[in-house]
């Protein structure tokens, strides 16, 4: 075994240099050409960064479209899901509370129309998106609070729907941050 140790140590040194120094440096250099320069794609309003396109943020006010429940309250310093099992009674209680809260804030929406994603926490706690149905179900509330017609809002949401990849693969989604920025500019 001894005769393999010296080459092993030398090889380790060389590979740390190659794989943990040169390789990440190369990727960082290439990333400078990418949108966001490899630091993540930011979104600005009036020249001020208000968030990252891909990182969900919390909206509690009724005047905004609200994202999904988050186990970390959208604190992007960390990330986590709830890790609650489907049969967990505590979890079922939490979901029931979310349903009740939603119904209280969205009068006129029947219980069976609530999309599951609005009462279940996302995997990362930072989910930036909603499905079109989950955005549309909030139109009535936002319209009422903002005094904008529902048609106009529905049109805005529809405009913000990103279809499946190449039109064939994956779900459609709506980026909540971008939708809300557009909402603020809509008078």
């Amino acid at each position: 075994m001894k005769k393999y140790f010296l080459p092993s140590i030398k090889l380790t040194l060389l590979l740390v240099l190659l794989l943990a120094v040169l390789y990440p440096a190369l990727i960082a250099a290439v990333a400078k050409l990418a949108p966001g320069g490899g630091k993540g794609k930011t979104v600005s309003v009036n020249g001020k960064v208000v968030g990252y396109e891909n990182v969900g943020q919390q909206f509690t006010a009724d005047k905004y479209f609200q994202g999904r429940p988050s186990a970390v309250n959208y604190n992007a310093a960390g990330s986590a899901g709830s890790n609650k099992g489907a049969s967990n009674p505590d979890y079922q209680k939490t979901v029931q509370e979310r349903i009740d809260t939603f119904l209280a804030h969205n009068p006129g929406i029947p219980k069976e129309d609530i999309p599951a994603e609005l009462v279940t926490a996302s995997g990362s706690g930072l989910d930036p998106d909603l499905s079109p149905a989950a955005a549309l179900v909030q139109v009535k509330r936002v319209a009422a609070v903002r005094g904008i017609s529902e048609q106009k809002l529905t049109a805005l949401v529809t405009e913000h729907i990103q279809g499946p990849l190449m039109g064939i693969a994956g779900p459609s989604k709506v980026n909540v941050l971008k939708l809300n920025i557009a909402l603020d500019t809509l008078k």
Partner: protein
Amino acid sequence: MNSEITGVIVTFILTLLIAFPLGKYIAKVFQGTPTVTDFMSPLERFIYRFCGIDPQKEMNWKQHMMALLSINLVWLVYAFFVLLFQSHLPLNPDGNPDMTPDLAFNTAISFLVNCNLQHYSGESGLTYLTQLIVITFLQFVSAATGVAAVAVLFRAFAEKTTEKLGNFFVFFIKTITRILLPLSIIMAIILVFNGTPASFDGKDSIVTLQGDSVQVSRGPAAGMIAIKHLGTNGGGWFGANSAHPLENPDYLTNMTEIIAQVILPMALIFAFGFFIRRRKLGYVIFGVMTLGMLTFMIPTLFSEMGGNPALAHMGLKDISAMEGKEVRFGVPASAYWQVMTTIISTGSVNSMHDSSMPLSGAMQMLGMMTNCFYGGKGVGLLNYFIFLIIAVFISGLMVGRTPEFMGRKVEAKEMKIAAIIALFHPFLVLVGTALSSYFAAHHPQIGWAVQPAAWFNNPGHHGFSEMLYEFTSASANNGSGFEGLGDNNIFWNISTGVVMILGRFIPIIGPVAIAGIMAKKKYIPESAGTLQTDTATFGIMTYAVIMIIAALAFFPALTLGPIAEYFQLY
């Protein structure tokens, strides 16, 4: 057809389309015939010269294992100490602390053995330096170690009677220079252009649209995320792993990542067929593995897409199982990922497995319990080889011949090794889970950092599943978890650390030893009475052996976990 289902099918087809030529290429790399990456040879020659390696020196299987264990020992010591003192080292913009010794022990082993169980969260548990020089580094070399080990199997059956099985260091270095590094560079570039960070800047502070002040974790993540998947490692940069929107920003990166983790295990199967000039054997092995994959995939898709019946009881119509899942991936792509990541020992997640439906949880665990459908980098095929030897033995008898594989007799010595390896995995998992169950049941208040009573994020059978999953994942070197489990304490850090290291090296040494012993044996030419191992019938036999040995041993445990939960929920 629904675009979410189409997405899954397209993903699988693309995987196959890439894996097949890649397999051909890998066979060429190990045969030493010219390939497009020959521009790497000056670098390789420099490495050989610098390290004092004679690439022409052929090793027997024992020398292979000696070399493998030696270099792994070097890495273990290195990783442990760097993690222990990481706060004193540079490149720590977020000011993260040192690891506790038990956590450093667990983490060093976890990445050394290609498991990537994480009892810490990337954002706060590591520094940028350790993410790179420990985590990323180990993700490359542990994957290459597995491939170098399976290369011995290739050599053992490519020639008639031989003791010379190539050089460990050559296989290892070529795996990095010719396979892992080029593919990682391509993949990392795809990721950065889709929004994954790659710069060395620390956390960013922003004020959100609503006016909250939040910090956003970042870092040179793209390179690590590339090898994390290509090397079937699975340890995430961020705590939420590939569910995190910076680690996996959209459906395209999701496809890239799930394809990247499957192509090499799949390609190695084809490479085996090409290398030993028995393509059909490669195809049959691939077929069996795909059948195994579907056995777990189909129930998972149905159970996940069926939604959570508890939501229906609350009066909802849409009962999608969206807990722990991301909107941009949707349920089918998350279910597909759940199965793939568990059968191939990656263990990265794009949804929280703890929150998946009970039946899906059972399938995820079965994926790790069988641990050979495609399987981990190199080790998947090695695990499969063990079951194949057992299948050869039983079917050989069934056709009235003392069993042989590839012209070599399978005798008591090989059976002994195969039997030990086959029972080793259930042994580690069941004994580990029994130990934790014992503490949870009889000593709930023991004074560990997390008391056993507080281990569980979910009560009852699901809590049992959390323990079972943790040990299964550790022994299968998978690394995913039912992450609700409070595992950063001395019990889990030490117990899973020991299980991981045993679950790695014993199942590598066993099959390589069998291959090495068989390679030395007299070659017996085929006759009409010889059992053909490249037929569908034999494939079915192997499948049955895997299911019966690997899955049945866990049936009672699964009954107390996800199966009981299933019957309670539905």
